[in-house]
Structure formats: C-alpha cells, structure tokens
C-alpha cells in the first residue's frame, strides 16, 4: 500500500525543538563563564535563520520561503567563516541539528503509520515500510539545510507500507 503522511504543525515544531536542544552549553556552577560562549552564540544566530526558513517553508511552501532559505545559507556560511579556528565546531553543531531535525521528522512520520489495519472484516499487520523520501547525509551544512528545507516545505512524505493478513 502506498500512502502519504502529512506533517502537522505540532510535529514540525517538535522536530525543530529536538534539533534546537543539540549543542547547547553545559551547565556552569559558581562564578563561572563558558569558554565556548561565542561558538554557542554563533550557532544560535545561524540557527535562527535556518529555523525561520524552515518555518516559512512549512507554512507557505518552497517558493515563498526561497529568499529566507538563501539568506540562511549565506548567513550560516558567513558565521562559520567568521568563527575562524572554531568555525569547524559551529559547522559540526549545525550539521547535528539538521540531522536531528530530519530524523525526528522521519520518526514522527513513521509513527503515524498504523501497525494494524482492519479491512473487509480481516486484520492486517504491518511488515515493511519504505520511505520514498531520500535522506541525504553529507558533511555540507548547505546540502543538509536544503534537505531539511525540502522536508519542511513539502509537508508530506510518501510511504509504501506492506501488510499481511493476521492469522485467525
């Protein structure tokens, strides 16, 4: 059976929230300061732009959000470059966040596929699920951002699910 699962706003925000939790600063006790505060601040500023583009894409679709996406890509690359020797860390955290967003979106999509269905008086159990959406994993923030954006902007994921009739 082939079906389309629509992404809900709540699930989208859950995926964004899960991604936003990656790479946050560790707790500091007493009169202390994080030595990574600048890296963390750069990550958040780049992430602001990414989330804005994803939200816009989710709400209004690919075309209307294209400008925000371009701005997010440009700003992210600029921030990574400005970070100098620590740009790699900024890059890495953003990558992890984008992957988390994509994974969380996929998981929530799969969770919507029923494990059993009732059809014509019979009960059918899920055996395999195939996602037609290809998840590209690369080391490029830009590619991963495009991927995440594509997931958000399409708002739907095609799924092929196989069921077999459960034994009586």
């Amino acid at each position, binding site marked *: 059976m082939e079906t389309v699962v629509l992404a809900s706003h709540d699930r989208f925000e859950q995926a964004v929230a899960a991604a936003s939790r990656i790479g946050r600063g560790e707790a500091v006790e007493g*009169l202390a*300061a994080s030595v990574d505060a600048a890296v963390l601040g750069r990550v958040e500023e780049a992430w602001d732009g990414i989330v804005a583009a994803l939200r816009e894409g989710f709400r209004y679709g690919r075309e209307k959000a294209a400008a925000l996406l371009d701005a997010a890509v440009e700003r992210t690359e600029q921030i990574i470059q400005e970070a100098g020797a620590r740009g790699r860390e900024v890059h890495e955290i953003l990558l992890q966040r984008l992957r988390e967003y994509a994974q969380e979106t996929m998981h929530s999509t799969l969770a919507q596929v029923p494990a059993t269905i009732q059809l014509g008086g019979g009960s059918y159990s899920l055996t395999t699920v195939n996602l037609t959406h290809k998840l590209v994993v690369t080391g490029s923030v830009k590619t991963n951002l495009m991927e995440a954006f594509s997931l958000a902007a399409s708002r739907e994921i095609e799924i092929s699910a196989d069921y077999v009739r459960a034994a009586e």
Partner: protein
Amino acid sequence: MLLLPVSHAGSAPPPARMDPMAENIIAHSFAGFDESQLQFLVTDCLMSLMRCAGRLEAELADRDDGYRTLLQRARGDPALVLDIAAREGGVTGELLALLDLVTLHSWHRGLSILLADARPAVDAHVGPPGTAGFPRTLPGAVLSALLGLAEVQEGGSMEPAAVHRAAAGLERCAELLRDDDALDDAFACVLSAINLAPWLRPAQRESATGLALELAEEGGSPDNLCFARARRVEFLVAAAEEDPGRRIEAFDAFEAAACRLPADADRRRVVLRCLQACLERAPYLHLLLPVLAAALPPDERPDGLPDLAPYQAATNPLWEGSSAEWLQQRQAFGGWLVQVENARLDAARQARARHAAGAVWADWSIFHPGLREAVPHGTSVLRERDLQNFLLVLGHEVTHVFSMVGAVGVASLAMRWALLELEITVATVYREPPYQLAPPDVLRLKGIAPLRVPRGGLEWLDVLLLAELEQTLEVARKIQVLEATWSPWFEGLAVFGEAAADPTMNALTYSPTTGVIHHLVDRQPAQLAQEWGVEVAAAVRRARDELEQMYSGALRSSGAYRLRTYLDQYAPKYQAGYLAVRAVVSAWRAALGEPLSGAEAFQVLLHATRFGAYDALPHLGLPLEEFTGAAVRLHLEWVSNLAAAAAGDLRRLAGYIPDPERPGLRFGWVKGKLMEDSDEDAIAEETVRLVERFGRETLQSLRGPLAPVWRVADADERCAHIMEVTASSLLNARAEPRMLSADAVHSMISRQLILPIGRTRAPFWLIRDGHFLACLIRTMESSGEAGAPSYDLLIFPLPEESFEELAREVEARGEYRMEVARVADLADIRLDGSGALARGDGRNLIVFRYGEWSYVQVRGLGTGAGQVDESLLDDIRARLAENPVFDAHAWVGGAQAPGARRALEWIDAVEDWTLDLSGLEVDLGPWARRLRDVAVQVLENDPPVRVEDELLRMALGDAAAARLGQHGLAPLAQAYPLDVAKLTRFLDASGRMPVQDDALDALAARVAETLGPLMARTPHGWDVARAETLGHREE
C-alpha cells in the same frame, strides 16, 4: 614494548626476610593466592604491630597486676575479659594494652582463635572502622588490627571486612605513632596496611598510600621514599582506571618514582616490579619508560636499549658539563621530552571540565581550562588558537576577582576565617577522645574528626555541642547567602565588562582589568623605544594601545555572540545582573546628560562594587532568616542608590587620573555618594579593622540575643528554654577572632592580591657552566590553527648564590620538574622612589619554585626590570607556597562543606534527643531537626535566595521583569526568531554607547510586544530602558 627485566615477575612473594622497616613490601598476584601467602601477610602485620609493644607496656602503668588477675579469671578469653571488665569497673586503655600484648605474644598458641570469636565484645568497646567509636588510642587501634587479622587467619581467606578492619587498625597505629615521632614504626605499620591493599576499598588504599608517602618524606630515608612512591603509583594507576581524571596524578607519581630507584639492589628489584606492573596497566605511561631505564645501574639495564645518555640528561636537572654539551644533548632529547609533555597534558585534560572558566570566592583565584597546565610567556598569547575568546574570558574572570577585592569579598573571607575558628573549637572540644588541639593543618590532613556520639541519654556537653554545631552551620549557610545575593550583580558586571568596556574608548585611563590584559604579553619598553624611535614612556603607551586594540577587536567581533549565549542559554545566571547593570548605566547617562561610554561606566561600576558596598552588608551575626532578608534588602538598596549617583560624582570618577599632588588619595562610596578617603595607609588600617569587625560579628552568630528561639518553630517551652540557656552560655566564648589579628589580616589580604593566572610543572636543568637555569614551559594548551600545545625553552643566568641553593634542593629532592607560575599583582598602583612601578597595575610576573627555592622575574610591560619590590616577593611566596592554614580555610569554607557533612552524620547517629534534667525530660528533637535542615541546605547549596526577580523588577519595572524573569528571550524567539540576534546586537552596541539608528524603532516595538519595554529612545540614541523609579534618590 616493556623492555625491563624483572627477576620475580609473576612469581610468589620474595622469601620472608622480615625486616619490617622497609622490606615488607609485597607484590601480589591474585592468581594462585594461597594459604602460605595469607600467612605471610598476617605475620608481616603482626611484626609491624609488635613495634607498638613498648608503648603498650608503658600504658599498663601500675594496674598490671589487677588486670593479670582478671585475665586469669577469664582464662585468657578476650570476650570474657571485656565482659567482666565492663561489669566490674569499665574497659580501660590499660586493659586493652594488656590484651594486645598477651594476644601478640600468644598468637600462635590459640589466642587468635579466641579473639576471632570475640568480635561482638570487641565491637562493643572498640568500634569498627568508619564508625564514631573507632579507636583513637594505640591500645584500641592495635586491638582492632589484631581482631581483623585473627578473623583473616581463622577464616582462611582475605574476607574484605576483616582485612578492612586490620588495615584500618594498622593505619591508625601509624598515625598515632607518627604523632609520637616514631616515624620508622609508623612507616612499618602503614606499609603492612598497604600490603593488604588489593582487598581494600579505594578510599582506604588512597589514605594508606598517602600516609606512607608523608611518613617517608618526613623520615628522610631515600629508599623508603622510593617504596612509598611506588606504592602510591600502584594505587593511582588503579584509581585512574576508574576515574580518568586521576591520570595526571598517576603520571606525575610514576615520573617521580621512576626518576630515582632505591640504592639497595633487592629493594630496587621490588620497586621495579611495582612500576613495571603499572606500565603494563597504563599505556599512557609508556613514554616514561626511558626515565625508568635511565635510573637503573648500567649492569641492570636490558640489552638492546638505545643510548640512554640523552634521557639521563633530560631527567637529571644537574648538568656539570659545558653549556655547549648540554645544548647538544638537548637536541637529542628535545623531541622525546615534548612528547612526554604532551602525554602529561593529555593526562591532565582528563581531570577537568574544559567548557568553563571561573573565579573562586574562597581564595580569590581563577581557573581557565587553557591555563591550568600552561604559562603564557613572551608573545605566546598572541599565538592562542582562539585568542579573542581567551582575552574576553580572562577579562571576565579577572573582573570577578577585582570585584571580590572589596567589601563583599572581604566579608566573605572574614566569615570563612570565623567558620574555621568555630570548626576548630568543635573539633577540639567535642571530638572523640583524646581531646587534643586540632590546628588547621590537622583539619586538612586528617579531615574533620567524628564527634563523640552520646550513648544513652544526652549529657549537657552534647547540648553545648548542638549549640556550637548550629553556629558553624549558620555561618556556613550565611556565607552562601551573601555570595548568592551578590553573584547576579558580579556576573552582570563581568558580562558588561566583556561586551561593553572597550578600552579604546577611554583614552585617558583604563580599568584594573585592562591593566592585567596589558601585561599578558612580555615586552621590554627600552627595546621597544629603540625599535620605534620614541621615548620609553611613549613606547609603553603604544604597547598598551596595541593590546587595547586587540581586546577591542575581540570584544567587537565576539562580544555580541557571547552576550547572546549569556542571555539566552544561561539566562537564569546572567540575565538579571546584566540588565540591572545596564539599567544603572542608563540612569547615569540620563543624569549626566551625555553618553557615558561603556569603558567609563565599567570603571565606575567596578569601583563602586569594590569600595562602595560596605554599607550594603548586614550585621554578619544576624540569625540566618534575618540575615537573608537583610542581605537582599541592602543589596537592592545599594543598587538603587548607585543608580541615583550624582552627575558630579560620576564625572569625577569616570575619567579620574591620579593627582600627583595627592598620590595617596582614594575614593569610597557611602549610600551611592562618592567620598574622598584620607590616604592609602589609613585605608589599609581601616580594612584591617573591618575584617576584624566582620570576624567578630560572625562569631556572635547565635550567641545571646542573636539566637531567637523562634527559629525552631516546633520547639516546646522546655526546649526553647534550653536553647536560650545555651545561647547565653555561648556569650562566654571568646568574642574576638583569634585568627584575625591585625598582622594576620594584613598578610592574608596582601597574599590574596596576587592572582595566579597560569601554572605548570616544567622540566628544568641547572647548567653549572654560566650558572644557567633552563626550563621547558608549555606556553599555551592550544595554539595556532592546529590547536597543538606550544612550548618555550627559557634559558637565563641565575645569581650564583641562588644557583647553588637550587642545586642543593635538587640533590635533596631529585625531581626534575619545578613549578612555574605566571601571576598578576592586583594591588593598588604604587611607585618606588625613582618613580618606577613597584606594585599593582596588574603587572605580570613569572615565578619559578622548587622546594624552598624561588625566583621571580618581572614580565609584561615590565620585562627586563631587575628589582622586584620586597613586599611583592613576600606576597608572591605566600600566595604560591603550600600553607595548611590557608588550605584548611579554603577547604572548610569550600564547596565540600566537610563540617556540614560531619554535623549531619552526628545528628543522624544520635538516637535519642531527650535530655534528662534530674527527672525533668526535655525533648531537643525539634532543635536537632533544625540543625539537620540547615546542614542539608549547606551541603546541597541550593540557592538560598532568589535575588534575580527583585533585581529585574527594580531595574526594569514590573512589566518587563515579569516576562523576562519567567520566559527569558523565548517569547521573542518564538514570534520573531531573527530578532533575537538583533536585540543582542543592540544590547552589545548600546553598552558601549547609545545607538543612533532609526531602524531600531520597529525592533523596539516588537521587543516591547513580546518581552516588555526593554529599549528606550534617549536624546543620545537607543539605550536600555529602566524602571521609572530607578535613578531617583529617596532622601
């Protein structure tokens, strides 16, 4: 890889040639541990205990006969002996001594069997290890050890509880023998305890190996020291397997042990076996193998080793050849030594959190993950991989320390001294007998002793203890309250300094924090003057300008990002203090009618925090609840008064340049008004008086009228009466703090003004040809793009006398590392007779220390200056030297809160809180529960006050405070994600100067909609808004 031959590796222990002094070190093999080895261990322990026999006989005194009769009546059965004695007159130390002697002499004639069966009886009089009843006298300690050994022998196995008891008894014997100056006997006992190590808990192994090392160092026998070091390495290698944070200890301990092996061949073989076993377990030690090989006599070295001469040169600090020859050897060992240093750094990195830098209230020190094993030198700072953040973080932490060098820090320090004094009283009077003085070094070395637990009903002494324990707990908690009250402000000030105090915006003066930054790079002014073709003064100014430009660049490119993190991810910690500081600065700009720069504002804020907060401190003896309320109220009043500072005062201080006609003139603040202080000396005397007053006030805690009975809500009339009586009796205790005499305070404060920036233990060499000291120091933990550590080899001549003194120390200690530290002088600026800088200005110095020897070089912009002020030298030595009193002070008042832990244990150990007053029963349970609650609060250090909400409300008004306090920047992020960055950029820029930008209107509206009125348009541009009431003085 492991090349060293070991003749007995893996075999049974060496034959029992039982010279217990130093031979009783046994290498264990768990596999195949058998009866004979068990017997060997027991015999070894018995022989060590026999060393106590003379002292036990002396204990018997005149009552020998009576006890011998008793022994006969009981037919030698220890259980019966103790029972009869308990019934007929009590179990005394003399009786235990007799029992010990008889058992030791008749061990193999069956007494061990009887003793093993007597455990319940022994436990009744000699508590097991870890309990309050565990003996503190030699007869009791010996009996405890004997009981453990008897159980091992009769059980035929190394049953952990029995071994633990035996080892604890032996260790206690060692401690008591050490107190009696019998170091050899003590060493024998503790080595026997260590022989049981494989069956002991890690904490017990740690204490026994630590004690052995101390005893060996005190005893002065080189071979004993080798043994003790080897045993310590064994323990540390095992401990590092559980906790990688201890690798650096294992590394250093192995290095020290491998450098110098015992002179005696048999002993050397045993030590070698220990060290080789450690090498097999810990790959991170492999690089040190040549150190071990080079320490062996040539005929014991295995074949096929490379030329060890370079390694010997590397690890022997004394070089008698020419300097040219040394340089040649250095070429040969240089690469290996850098590898060793890198391995040591890797080990050190396991030990600490790498994400945070911080400042410590207890001793006004700072820590930075990049500087714990590195000493900036020359221009190394400029090569730092993440220089911008390095400078900003260092500035942040230095600001904290400067903030402490003022009213609040001094009060906190004095309270800690008073706490130490109270703890010593408790530990001296109420500990388990014998009652003996517990000076601070004893507290440090042995921990806070368990208190005497009442058996049966409470006695009057227990009630007094309850009162005195409550004093210690209240003081510990009040220290937490004071620091928690001021921490938001301190953080706000430090963040403001990071983001807004651009030193290039103040051409005439600079803040004390900037002074420290100026001196981070070593430059010789005379050389610079020559190079640049200018006067020396102009060269210094230009060099300062260069550093300021660099700091300014860091602040402008990273400040906004750091601010974003502080206000977003760490909002509960930084937001309230930062916005309060900003609101105060806004009020000042309004009062001045001109845009005060961030740099100027920072200087005034820091000055007021240091010298204007004395009137913001409550009486330090107030009861906890009142103290908490007063501390918060006075703090808020202080902020409010500061915001209302007069324009004239602000103008006078913001650009203040010291008046050459009045060099001693200083300023202070009273209720937000600037006051002239008479002169430097008068201020110093006043500071001493204040510290004494703070100490005196703290000691008054819970004495007489400062001990309201309402603090124990459920106390009945009788309990309340007892509380009143004890509070009155505490009035008889000494009112003046013993430890805060004028001299002590002076030296304590002076010492604290030396701030260690970076420290490391560096390999060094003394080259007699030319009296050179060469030293390889790690200058940065991560430099350049690759982030690899960076090293400098320093070579400079020492005065002959200093050279010879160091050479003698090296002969005695044999270690090839010395401590190298970079420190900053935080004292007020003082010039010497020639007008040169003598003290202060944040000037940096590098200190070389080895044992009692030390040498100091001026660095930073004073590099090349020959003379170092004597007072500065004294303060540096005092700051860096190990000092048990200061250690105890920091430990007792530190995060571990050992006193509170001990108090909690004691309270929980007391079963019945009824005091019987001649038939009149008083239930002191409610009072004890109050103590318990406070002890838990101290241990958990849960926030005692939440001053942040009040601070925000006062600074910004109710509307903004409510939303920001509850949600931080989240509402703005949710509604307008891209505006969070815009807001933090605005906050960043307006901290330095109000921002002229009409485009901010729209942002201000969206911020007001989501967070509240946080931005305000002023005549000079956009600035942070403040509550309408802030900045107006209420006369």
